[in-house]
């Protein structure tokens, strides 16, 4: 079970489809509800893109529209430059892994994988060869005669992957593929999926509500909220430079203090908070003096009890409570007037010494703070 998917195994010669996928102002209504409100996006050939968002944000509906399982009410979807709006799913040549895998319980593993090939009229000997290659690729070569019910969750996941790529589809679609697995297996499968995707070079779209999964797997993350795309970018872009409070909250810890912009000079805003501090942060667009704002900072950018205070803004506070997670500890520090900042510190030298209620110094670079208009 450990080790990785055999990335060197070939899928049987011919190049696998690495098609471009374009979404052009795609909209979808469910009765009176506009579930997808005009999504436009271009996915490059061979790219791995992740739709990330809370449930009900339209990410799964968008994926299902690419598969052809839902029809867009407006807009156009193109796969490899060809408009597919009117093509039913069985004519689209896509591969899909469902959240519950949807492996046919009345067929063996080998029959499951052979299904798509048989539907395409592939000859018997070719089907056998391809099925064997696909099973070897997901390292389950000896499992062909088993029933899906005789497999573990991780094995089912791999068979579902093998079944999705054996027909060499133009696009691979993954709908919350790891949601049913436990944490450890999920992390292992993340690596395996990424390696498999690189090895076969297939354009891949996957949907998740798990930000860590998105950061680990995707070349680009598409963050969705209420049927709209709110940000598209590389994982580090989306994490370091979220465009809105929603994106920053959804990816990573919420860590914010609110304040008021006193003045903006030379591209820097001076923000005063209820706790009596004044932060000098990079000024954003659309914010002017007098505005109420939230200042957001990642916990790992807040240092507990800094030894070297060069360039740091040092704040004195009271430790409210700590969250020990093994590798790191999160310290919730009250910096006055109920404003709490969370600081993350690696447990390099064992547990932190300060007990809740004690005084604690924290340091941060105001440059790394992000400023968003207050949500009232």
């Amino acid at each position, binding site marked *: 079970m450990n080790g990785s998917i055999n990335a060197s195994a070939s899928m049987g010669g011919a190049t696998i489809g690495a098609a471009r996928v374009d979404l052009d102002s795609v909209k979808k209504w469910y009765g009176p509800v506009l579930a997808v409100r005009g999504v436009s996006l271009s996915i490059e050939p061979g790219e791995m893109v992740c739709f990330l968002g809370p449930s009900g944000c339209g990410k799964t509906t968008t994926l299902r529209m690419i598969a*052809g399982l839902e029809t867009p009410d407006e807009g156009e979807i193109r796969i490899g430059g060809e408009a597919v709006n009117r093509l*039913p799913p*069985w004519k689209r*040549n896509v591969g899909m892994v469902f959240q*519950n895998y949807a492996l046919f*319980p*009345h067929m063996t593993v080998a029959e499951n994988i052979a299904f798509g090939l048989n*539907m395409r009229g592939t000859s018997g000997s070719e089907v056998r060869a391809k099925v064997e290659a696909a099973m070897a690729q997901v390292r389950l070569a000896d499992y062909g*005669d088993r029933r899906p019910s005789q497999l573990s969750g991780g094995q089912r996941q791999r068979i579902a992957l093998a079944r999705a790529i054996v027909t060499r589809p133009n696009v691979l679609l993954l709908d919350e593929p790891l949601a049913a697995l436990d944490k450890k297996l999920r992390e292992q499968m993340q690596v395996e999926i990424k390696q498999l995707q690189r090895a076969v070079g297939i354009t891949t779209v996957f949907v998740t509500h798990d930000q860590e999964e998105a950061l680990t797997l995707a070349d680009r993350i598409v963050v969705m909220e209420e049927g709209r795309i709110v940000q598209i970018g590389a994982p580090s872009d989306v994490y370091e430079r979220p465009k809105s409070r929603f994106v920053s909250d959804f990816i990573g810890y919420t860590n914010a203090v609110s304040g008021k912009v006193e003045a903006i000079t030379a591209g820097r805003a001076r923000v005063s908070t209820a706790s009596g501090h004044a932060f000098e942060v990079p000024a954003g667009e659309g914010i002017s003096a007098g505005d109420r704002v939230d200042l957001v900072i990642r916990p790992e950018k807040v240092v507990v009890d800094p030894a070297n205070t060069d360039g740091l803004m040092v704040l004195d506070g009271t430790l409210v409570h700590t969250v020990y997670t093994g590798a790191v500890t999160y310290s919730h520090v009250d910096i006055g007037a109920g404003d709490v900042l969370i600081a993350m510190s690696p447990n390099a030298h064992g547990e932190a010494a300060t007990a809740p209620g004690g005084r604690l110094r924290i340091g941060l670079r105001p440059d790394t703070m992000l400023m968003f208009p207050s949500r009232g």
Partner: protein
Amino acid sequence: MSTPAGAPTRALDGLPPRRIDYGRLFSLLMLLAPAALLLAVGLLWPFLTMLRMSFLDRYPDPSALTLEYYTLVLGDPYFLRIIGRTFSLALVVTVITAVLAYPVAWFLARSRSRYKHLVFLAVISPLMVSIIVRSIGWTIVLGNEGLINALLHGLGLIDGPLQLMQSFWSVVLGMVHILIPFMVLSIASVLGKIDPSYAEAAYVMGANPVRTFLKVTLPLSVQGIASGSVIVFCLTIGAYVTPVMLGRGKVLVMAMGIFEQMVVTVDWPTGAAVAMVLTMGTMLVLIAYGLFLRRYSRR
């Protein structure tokens, strides 16, 4: 991966070895006891009595074992015709019921229509009326002075009345009507439990709706057809009232034959032999059917 494929062991799968929990076993037996008692008194006892009766010379004065009554029944063209007719009736009714019920079951299981409840009510409505009333209802429709004949006569299409009753197919019609709710409900309950993502997975893999139905949905719903078929087959094979009412004595089935032997001619051993042939035949058919379905749904 050294275990032979298809033969996982409990230990390998990380499951604990099976242990017999005697306390649990006892409470299970206690739960089964009332039903088991009822079966023993109401079914097993009469069955064994009949079995004994059919093999004994001159019941109730048993002297020796004999196959006399079986050779009598199985050698008599009269009985053979009845047996053949009964089994074909059950087979035809089962097939027709399954074919007619499947689309309705599909609608009940999958539709989001607001008329779904009305359809459900229509499906189970025959169950709310007694068999005898329904059979008389068909008499009103099919009889010589019935609805259809009156209509055809009124339209000038026929001179004399058509003989719609007293035929094998009028009995089939009545039986299908009476038994179709069982088939619809059996199939619908299984169809409703099939995850729609199976069909979607088939579509995405290139199967059009017809092939998806034949390769995925139908095999997955076989259990529903199977349980519905068993109910319909068994109820048809033992049917008495409907063949009497709609066949008007012209369509003799085994239940009527047994009744005749036991009550009219008071020949209990022969009646018992016919009853045993009916029971054993039914069991054989059900076993063969079960084996066939098992093969099909595993493909």
